[in-house]
């Protein structure tokens, strides 16, 4: 199996929140969505997904409720809350700042 890059630490929460901005999803849906949107580059380990969801629940950034899927199975759907939306904005801007900073450092190094 080809070695895939690990998720940058601290970005999982942000990715989950971002995924949920479109529509409520269940855990499997979140994992699938991140995988597809990243063209199979990012894989969410189930080992970190569920603890992360519990953490987000606890922070009040997402809500959970049991609903039926299209295939008529019971699943826990997670919905973004207003606080979650605010948190997402915060994390995205922080992340962008960091990426920008890293980019600057890298380009400077190339020029030298």
């Amino acid at each position, binding site marked *: 199996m080809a070695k895939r890059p690990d998720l940058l630490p601290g970005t999982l929460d942000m990715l989950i929140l971002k995924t949920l901005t479109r529509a409520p999803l*269940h*855990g499997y849906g979140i994992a*699938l969505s991140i995988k597809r949107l990243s063209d199979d580059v990012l894989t969410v380990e*189930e080992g970190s997904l569920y*603890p992360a969801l519990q953490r987000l629940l*606890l922070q009040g950034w997402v809500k959970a409720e049991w609903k039926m899927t299209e295939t008529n199975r019971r699943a*826990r759907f997670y919905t973004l809350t207003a606080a979650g939306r605010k948190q997402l904005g915060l994390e995205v801007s922080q992340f962008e700042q960091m990426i920008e900073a890293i980019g600057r450092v890298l380009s400077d190094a190339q020029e030298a």
Partner: protein
Amino acid sequence: MNPVYRFLKKLPILFRRTRFRDELDEEMSFHRTEAEKAFVADGMSPAAARYAAKRQFGNASALQEQSHEVVGFWMETVVQDLRFAFRQIRKNPGFAFTAIFILALGMGVSVAIFGFVDAALLEPLPYAHPDRLMAVDEASAMFPRSNLSREDYDDWKRLNHSFSSIEAFGGTGFLLGTSSGIVPVPAARVSDGFFSTLGVKPMLGRGFLPGEDQPGKSRIVLLTYGTWMTRYGGRRDVVGQSVTLSGDGYTIVGVLPREFVFAPRGIAQFYVPLLDKNGCEQRRGCHNLDGIGRLRDGVTVEAARSEMQAIAAQLAKQYPGSNQGQGASVTPLAEIIVGNVRGILLTLLIAAGLLLLIACINVASLLLVRSESRRREIAVRGALGATPIRLVRQFVTEGLLLATAGCLGGLLIGGWLMTLLTRMVPKGMADYVPFLRIVGLNGHTALFAAAVALLSAILLAATPTLRLSFQDIRVGLGEGGRAAAGRLWRRLGANLVVVELAIAVVLLVGAGLLGQSFYRLLHVEDGFDTTHLATVQVIAPDSTYGNNQARAILLYSEIVRQASALPGVQSVGITTDLPVRCNCNTDWIRIVGKPFHGEHNEVDLRDVSPDYFATLRATLVRGRMLCASDDASKPQVVVINEALARKYFPGEDPIGKMIGDGALSPKSMRQVVGVIKNVREGALDDEVWPSEYFSIYHGIDTSFAVAVRTAQDERSILPVLVSTLHKVDPNLGVYGEITMTDQIESSQSSLLHRFASWLVGGFAAIALVLGVVGLYGVVAYSVSQRTREIGVRMALGAQRASVYKLVMRQAGWLMLAGVGVGLVCAVGASLLMRKILFGVQAWDVPTLAGVALVLGSASLAASFLPARRAASVSPTEALRAE
């Protein structure tokens, strides 16, 4: 995020843990099924798809755990630790029971003693701003604090500026007519502001108003709560009623509150104002009252004391006859009430603390031995990923659990001990020790118990933790590391045992010294035969006998005649004060023909009947005893004791010399006719004072005591004696019937010493057992660790005797170190408590040697058992065992 918010969100999860798990389970299995479907859609076979999904998902229960950790409380792992600790205890109930019992014993004893210390020394007196209340009294060369004369009191009250009020109180007794005849009741006379100074308000009616204590005012009385309940059935209409006390009518104006106690007059049932000056109070030189005062704001005790001393000096100049040498004393009232028990209570508290320390050390070494046997368990847990913190927490939890159980047990034992000890104080004495009422389990004692439990938990948790942190987990897994760990433990364990033995020595020496003090106290020279003596106190009504000497003399002789006729009675004596009570009721004497500068030569004075000395079996040294013919018709004579003869007639024969009062007034002149060996008038631990004995036939005493010597059991004659006295005159108040030996044994000094010696003795016995058991544990453990070494030695030809020597030498060194350190500490400790020792020095060699011998032989006996086990090791088996 707000921690409170998070806590609130976590809470429901904690209580619906199973639901949380089930939901997580369902969610995850949904995830797996979906993944499986996706794999199948990609063209995998169903079996391969399931396997791939499972593998991708990983360890489901680990996942569960991780999710759970996010939402779980830190506390939940504590519950796990606790559960494990409980399981440990259940697995090894013998160990747990021993440890908890030892801890409970140590804590119980400390809690009980602390209960007394708290009640006596920490709780404030039950008055308003008790720290500003002072005992204000006179002082003289022989009494650092002596009674106050009424005239001096009046002057002090008028002249001082230090006190917002100075009040006087004194004891008195009344004869009260009841349905069961005349009974004497103790009472107190107080000045008008006495209760307002204390800050005590009557619960019913009113207190004494200003000026109501002056001579000639109407007779009013306040009832104590106890009197109100027992004599008046708690009826609220008593206020305004009248009561006849010793023939005089008094109006009840109020009832004192239930919680009111005044230790210096603890037994008083009625409180009356001072009113008319009695015979004594008409003379400035006669001291029968005591004073209390409330310091003004901002005035220090020292300032008040120096002002009162200045006033006393001024009065001494003004009235040299009565006041020369009379100073003033100002002492905090609390000091007067609990000062005499402070030393003993603190000693007991320290002893109890030492016992607790021994108990903790003992349990700590038990834990240490157990941690040794749990090395593999700990190593396995460590290898499986338990963090060192988690392992340490396990030990802390176990220590806490033991300490908590020990603390609860200790509270039970402590509560029980407090009730037991309080009950052991005789009723008559308990009235003067009001703090006994509030001894018990309360906030303070509970707090103390919690603090003690916390300290012991720290000790119990620290010892095995310390042991753990030195140890490499890998070493624990293998068997080979035994020697290194064993050595370390031996050193720590051995040091603990030395401490234990040293503490045991300190307690044993303390107990030995206190026991000796008690023995010496009970065996002080009394100067008379204390056995087979029955005594009783009598109050004769003043109205009949107070002014009629002939009638009084008739009463005395009739009492002697009728009591002598009782079966088994050998002789009967009458005295104003029985021996072994107090150096009180004193007289100031002057010897004719000796230089005199107005000094107060204070001596004990007793008016006695002719047969009194014969009844006591006092020994005549020179001259003659008093006889029946020494009555009012003859010149007055006096018998003195050797102490008086030695002090005032050094090197000469006192017989025939004349003694009088300071002014040598003719009616005070008496000729010395006899000298007796000192009869102890004061308490057991008081000095013997010079004493003079007058014939009771020369004066009138309406308050006196009757002493009866019998051939048979003196206790059985007491009721007969009381009824005989009532037969002589039914109006006599008769009380306080007690045998002389009981009186001596229940006297305050004897009780205090008995309590101290028994308690410290008990502590020391427990300490001895714990210390010796601790030594046994260390030696036995070290033998079990060295079985292999011993086996090798024996295989190489070592004799059994040398194996004995090997083990005993180790025990011997520990014992020597413990006893040596202990003896040094013991002398130090005894020096600190020498104030409560009587007739024995802190460095009493026989005691020290005896303790060393007892502990030494007990230790050797304890180490002999493991030594024998070591010597009986079979070399082949020992080698194979490893």
